[in-house]
């Protein structure tokens, strides 16, 4: 069990509430969840985010691994939820989905000129770690006290898009001074920083840029790229065989479908996910390649040899020779 928990990342991640009608705020109902202990059966968790587009706030709770149950203190009171597959079903009826990729586009909020203003809480991006189309190098900052715009805050984020950490700090709006406790990440317990014009500097190196999220863009752009790919490939997929004799098409189909199945296997192996280590990418790919090569070389050759040895029947001979 423990080996399994270490090998794969934890329940931490970016969750978003499932809406029947899409909200105008693209970050509405989204939370970053960080688990404090990877090994304890019952571990404290921290969430930073907002409900239905309201102000960002911090929520604390626990996660019980043995029953996959959450207990989180919402502003309205404590609530229990169950983790099933990649979603949290809250007893109150809401469902939160774990997001593998952002369904929105992030853009720098340009020093507070936009709606986000000068507030510290909200979504951040670290240009040094960010990978487009993933949550790598993103974080959410929220104040610990409800309806507060000053004082203690929590930052939940991820460097690789899989493992979500959390740190706590304190913000003084008058001077813009920030003090963060980086000890959960192996850093110092008191790191000075500065927040000004949408840029949060922590220590000497780490810089976080405040982000505006817009619904249009990422999701839709991906959709149109996908349409373009589908159109070009559906329009071209018979081009390679156009000039070849395929007879009754039977063998061609078999080869084609082997390729389709192989593609499914490769996709299933999950090479498209942002993986921290190359091993999960390489192994299935190699397996699949060897599968493919054995399918498209060994078997047909064997068939051919077998076919050559077998006596020809008049039925088959008449079928296709034109």
């Amino acid at each position, binding site marked *: *069990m423990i080996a*399994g*928990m270490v090998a*794969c*990342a*934890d*329940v*931490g991640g970016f969750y978003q509430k499932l809406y029947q009608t899409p909200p105008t705020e693209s970050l509405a109902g989204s939370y970053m969840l960080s688990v404090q202990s990877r090994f304890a059966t019952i571990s404290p968790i921290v969430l930073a985010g907002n409900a239905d587009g309201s102000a960002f706030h911090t929520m604390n709770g626990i996660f019980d*691994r043995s029953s*996959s149950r959450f207990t989180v203190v919402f502003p309205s009171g404590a609530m229990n939820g169950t*983790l099933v*597959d990649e*979603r949290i079903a809250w007893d109150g009826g809401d469902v939160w*989905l*774990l997001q*593998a990729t952002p369904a929105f586009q992030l853009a720098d909020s340009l020093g507070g000129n936009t709606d986000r203003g000068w507030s510290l809480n909200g979504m951040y991006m670290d240009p040094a770690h960010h990978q487009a189309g993933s949550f790598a190098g993103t974080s959410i900052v929220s104040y610990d006290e409800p309806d507060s715009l000053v004082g203690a805050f929590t930052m939940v984020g991820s460097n690789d898009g899989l493992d979500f950490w959390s740190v706590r700090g304190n913000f003084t709006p008058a001077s813009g001074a920030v003090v963060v406790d980086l000890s959960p990440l192996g850093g110092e317990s008191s790191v000075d920083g500065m927040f000004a014009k949408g840029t949060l500097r922590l220590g000497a190196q780490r810089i976080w840029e405040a982000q505006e999220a817009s619904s249009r863009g990422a*999701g*839709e752009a991906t*959709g149109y790229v*996908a*349409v373009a*790919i589908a*159109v070009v*490939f*559906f*329009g*071209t997929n*018979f081009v*390679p065989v*156009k*000039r*070849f*004799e*395929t007879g*009754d*098409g*039977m*063998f*061609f*189909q078999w*080869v*084609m*479908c082997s*390729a*389709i*199945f*192989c*593609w499914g*296997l490769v*996709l299933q192996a999950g090479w498209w996910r942002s*993986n921290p280590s190359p091993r*999960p990418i390489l192994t299935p790919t190699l397996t699949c390649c060897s599968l493919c090569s054995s399918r*498209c070389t060994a078997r*047909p050759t064997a*068939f*051919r040899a077998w*076919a050559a040895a077998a*006596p020809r029947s008049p039925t088959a*001979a008449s079928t*296709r020779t034109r």
Partner: protein
Amino acid sequence: MGGCRAALANGRVDAYAVKFIPQAVAGGVLWATGNTMAVPVISSIGLGMGMLIWGTTNMLMGWATGMARLDRNSASPGLVWLNVTGVGLALLALALYTLIRPDAAKEQPAAMRDELLLQAGSAGGGVLGAGAAMDARPARRSRRLSGILLALLSGILYGNNFTPPNLLLNTGQGPSNALDYVFSHFCGIYFASTVRMRACSHLNPDTYPTLPMPTGQTKPDPSNPTPNPSPHPHPALVRSIRSPLTTTTHYHHQVYMLAYCCYKRSTPVLYPRVILPGFLSGLMWAAAQTAWFVANASLSVAVAFPLITSGPGIVSSLWGVFVFKEITGRRNFIVLGAAISLAVTGCVLIGVAKAMP
């Protein structure tokens, strides 16, 4: 196993976790069932007519599913009347494509000689290996009606092949990433094909050839040696129909291949030179189908379906004009030009409608 269970319990994405989703398998079965009908349809009403019918039904079905929010996708198709106009233009374009006549004077050496590239893969339907049925001539009126009905049915099945997985995806009851459904979908295609192949393999190849049966009809009774007494139009058709029997566009695989070998009396016709291009072709089809999953999720089916069912016709006709020179003559060019402009305009309108609030 413990690790695997932990991965599932943690609910976190695990590169090794096998996601096998029955609803996506059901979608694949729908597709494969629709695809099986291609050969009987083509042999009764011809490729052009068949494609027109199942292409339009496919597009309309998928589009209507999206419009009615049957798949529960919350992504909006945007301005409705503009979207409807765009879909209408795309439908007109589909109809125009069928007016293009292949160059009769030109002898095509390839197997798909009678089949325009344009007509092989466009309109989103698979028509895998339908090349063999191209020789079929239009048949009697009674068979035409059943052919039209079959084409309609196959379009309805094609148009709904994403509905079961989409329903799961959009209600949050399954993985949140559309790509997780692709493998199961392909498995469903494979599964349905294998089962139907087994049904067909009961047929005795030496008896009077029969058309492949669509789903819903029963398997031939093995105790009764006379196969399904399907109407047969013409003795001249016998030869061209015999091969469709084997080429029923079921999907793949050794089992199917083995049955084919049995049918061929240990003399399967293999074309080793097709291996590489065939594999490439399969990869392209699979990539396109995968992209379609993604497009459905982010644009909504009401937008993705008309775009992806009308676009490929443009691409393949361009291949036909500029590379294979199979579309020639002033009349053909005029028709093609009109069809392409209609399709492009329709697609642009659908895109613009989507961008509207």
